[in-house]
C-alpha cells in the first residue's frame, strides 16, 4: 500500500528504533531529574532549618552559688508567705544580688556571663522555695547569648575562651530550653519564647475559623445546590474565584483601610487579623466545599428527591454529611495557609514588640510567622537559631495540619 512495503526488520528501521528508545530514556531521566531536584530543594530547606534551629531548643546554663545571708538582699522568707510575695519580690533588687554573686564567684568572667533575664529564674526559685534565703543556694541560670553561642561552637574567640574556663570549673551545662516553648517575645535571645506568638496565632485562627468556616460552607452549599444561573450568582462565583487568587497583601490593605482606619477596630489585635485572614480563607473553603459537594454523586440527590425529600432536606440529610470530609480537608488546608500568612498581618500592625502573651482577641498580639519575620531581622547571633527554631515549630504545625488533611482525604476519598 505504501510507496514501498514497510521493512520492519531493516537496519535503517532498527537504528531508528534504537534512537527513539534513547530519546525515550533521556526524556524519562529528565522528568526524574525534575522530581528529584524539586524534592532536593525541599530537603535542603528543611535540613538547613533543622540544622540551624535544633540549637534553638537548647540553652546553656551557668552555675551560680548565692550566699543569701551574706548578700545585701534584705528579704525575709516570712514575707514570701501568702499573697504579698510578688510585691515583696518586686521591691528588692534581685538583679543586683545576682550580679554581685556572679562577680564574687567568677571575678573577671562575670561580666557578660549571665543572661539579662536570668534574675527572673532566681525570682521564681525564691518564690518556690523561700527557705533557700536562709543559706547558700546553688542555682543554674541561663547564660548570656555570647556564652550560649560559644557553647554551641560558633562564638567569638573571647567567649570561646570564657566558655572553656567555665567548662573546666564544671560551671556550665547545655540542656533543653523549655522556656522557649513557654515564654513570650523578649529582647534577649536567651530568654525569648514563642508561646506569646503561638497564642496570638491560636486566637487569630479561632476568629478566622469561626467566620470563614460557616460562611464558606453555607455559600458553597448555596452556589452548588440552589443558586439559579443568573447575573447575580455569576457575580458571586466570579468574586469567589478571584478572591482566591488575590494576593494576600491586598487583604492587608483592605484590613488597614476598612477595619483600622474606617471601623476603628483595635490595632495589632487577633480580632482584626482573624477577620482579615477569614476573608482570605473563605474563598478557599468555598471552592473546596463546592468540589466536595459536586463529587457527591447526583444519584444520591435523585434518590432522596425521588422519595419526596425537599431540597433543603436533601442537602442537610445527605449531601453535606457526605461532603464533610472534603470540606474539612479544604478547611484545614485553608487554615494552614492562613496560619503561615505574614504580609497582611504586617499591614494591620501585628508586628509590635509584645512581651506578654495576649489574653483575648482584642489584645495586641503577634503571630508565629510575623514573629519569625521580626526575629529574622534581629542581628544577634542568638536570634538566628531562635528564628530557625520558631520555623521548626511553625512547620511542624503546618505539616501536621496538612498531614491530617491528606489523611482525611485518603480515608474518606470515595470512588462512587
Amino acid at each position: 500500500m505504501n510507496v514501498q512495503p514497510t521493512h520492519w526488520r531493516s537496519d535503517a528501521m532498527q537504528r531508528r528504533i534504537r534512537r527513539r528508545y534513547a530519546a525515550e530514556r533521556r526524556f524519562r531521566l529528565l522528568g526524574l531529574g525534575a522530581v528529584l531536584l524539586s524534592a532536593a530543594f525541599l530537603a535542603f530547606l528543611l535540613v538547613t532549618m533543622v540544622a540551624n534551629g535544633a540549637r534553638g531548643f537548647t540553652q546553656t546554663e551557668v552555675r551560680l552559688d548565692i550566699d543569701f545571708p551574706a548578700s545585701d538582699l534584705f528579704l525575709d522568707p516570712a514575707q514570701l508567705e501568702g499573697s504579698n510575695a510578688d510585691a515583696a519580690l518586686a521591691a528588692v533588687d534581685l538583679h543586683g544580688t545576682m550580679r554581685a554573686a556572679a562577680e564574687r564567684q567568677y571575678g573577671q568572667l562575670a561580666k557578660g556571663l549571665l543572661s539579662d533575664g536570668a534574675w527572673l529564674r532566681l525570682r521564681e526559685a525564691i518564690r518556690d522555695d523561700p527557705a533557700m534565703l536562709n543559706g547558700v543556694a546553688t542555682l543554674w541560670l541561663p547564660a548570656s547569648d555570647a556564652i550560649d553561642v560559644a557553647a554551641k561552637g560558633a562564638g567569638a574567640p573571647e567567649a570561646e575562651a570564657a566558655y572553656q574556663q567555665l567548662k573546666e570549673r564544671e560551671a556550665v551545662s547545655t540542656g533543653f530550653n523549655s522556656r522557649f516553648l513557654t515564654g513570650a517575645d523578649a529582647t534577649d535571645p536567651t530568654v525569648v519564647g514563642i508561646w506569646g506568638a503561638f497564642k496570638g496565632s491560636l486566637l487569630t485562627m479561632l476568629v478566622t475559623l469561626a467566620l470563614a468556616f460557616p460562611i464558606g460552607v453555607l455559600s458553597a452549599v448555596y452556589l452548588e445546590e440552589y443558586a439559579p444561573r443568573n447575573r447575580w450568582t455569576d457575580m458571586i462565583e466570579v468574586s469567589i474565584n478571584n478572591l482566591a487568587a488575590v494576593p494576600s497583601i491586598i487583604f492587608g490593605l483592605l484590613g488597614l483601610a476598612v477595619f483600622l482606619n474606617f471601623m476603628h477596630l483595635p490595632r495589632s489585635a487577633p480580632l482584626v487579623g482573624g477577620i482579615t485572614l477569614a476573608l482570605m480563607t473563605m474563598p478557599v473553603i468555598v471552592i473546596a466545599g463546592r468540589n466536595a459537594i459536586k463529587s457527591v454523586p447526583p444519584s444520591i440527590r435523585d434518590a432522596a428527591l425521588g422519595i419526596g425529600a425537599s431540597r433543603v432536606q436533601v442537602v442537610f440529610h445527605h449531601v453535606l454529611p457526605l461532603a464533610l470530609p472534603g470540606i474539612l480537608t479544604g478547611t484545614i488546608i485553608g487554615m494552614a495557609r492562613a496560619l503561615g500568612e505574614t504580609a497582611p498581618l504586617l499591614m494591620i500592625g501585628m508586628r509590635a514588640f509584645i512581651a506578654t502573651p495576649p489574653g483575648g482577641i482584642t489584645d495586641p498580639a503577634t503571630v508565629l510567622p510575623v514573629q519569625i519575620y521580626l526575629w529574622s531581622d534581629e542581628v544577634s547571633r542568638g536570634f538566628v537559631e531562635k528564628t530557625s527554631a520558631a520555623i521548626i515549630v511553625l512547620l511542624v504545625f503546618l505539616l501536621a495540619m496538612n498531614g491530617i488533611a491528606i489523611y482525611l482525604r485518603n480515608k474518606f476519598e470515595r470512588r462512587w
Partner: protein
Amino acid sequence: MTDTIERATTAPTAPAAPAAKMTARGVSVFYGDKKAIDDVSIDVSQENVTAFIGPSGCGKSTFLRTLNRMNDTIPSARVEGRIELEGENIYASSMDVVQLRARVGMVFQKPNPFPKSIYENVAYGPRIHGLASGKADMDVIVEKSLRKAGLWDEVKDRLQDSGTALSGGQQQRLCIARAIAVDPEVILMDEPCSALDPIATAKIEELIHELRGRFAIVIVTHNMQQAARVSQRTAFFHLGNLVEYGETSEIFTNPRETRTKDYITGRYG
C-alpha cells in the same frame, strides 16, 4: 428468539380499558430550546405494567421523569401539556412536589442506596414524611417494605449494615423497598436492571410481577426481551415522539409502524 416471541405472546393480556391512574395529554418537554419530547399522550393504569422502549436518546427517561416532576431539578427543562395523577394536575401550583414524589416513587438505572444502614435507607422516607409514630411503628414499616421487595430474608440479620455493601441486585431491591416504604401509588423505574447480572435481573423481573396491581408500574428498558417479559402495555418512543403505544403482545408480534418493526428487529439502536 422464537422463544422470546412466544413469551411475549403468552404474556397475560391486559384488560380492555383499565382505569387510568395517571394520564398525560399533549406533553412536550424542552431542554432550553431543544424539544426532547413532542406531544405525547399516554395513560398509565394500576393493573398493568407499562414499558417504555426506544433507541438511546429518544426521550424515555425524560418523559418518565415528568411523571413525578423529577425534571424540576434540571434548570433548563420545561414541560408543556397536562399530566394528571388521579385527576389532579401535578403541575398545578397547588400541588406540593414533595408530596407528589412520595405518591409517585422512582427507581433509577444504577442502584443508588444512601450510604447509610439498610434500615435507615428504608426508614428515611417514612421519617421525613412523618409516617411512623414511633420506633416500633417504623420497624413494622421497614420489615413490610423489605418483605414486599423480596429482600427481607436476605438482610434481616444485618439491618445495620451499610446499604452500599449489598450486591447490585440487592441494592436495586433495597431501592425498590425504599420507594415502597412511603406507600406510593405509582412506581417509575428507569432501566432498573441494566446494571445487573442475569440472576439479579430475573429477581427484579419477578418482583415487578408481584407488585403489579398494588402499584401502577412504569418501566423504561432498553432490553426488548425484558419489556416483553414484564409488561402488559408497551410504548415505543423515537426521536421524542410516541410512535406506538399498545398491548405488549401486539407491539412485539404485529407492530403497526415500520419504525417500531425496524427497531424491534435490531436494524438500529
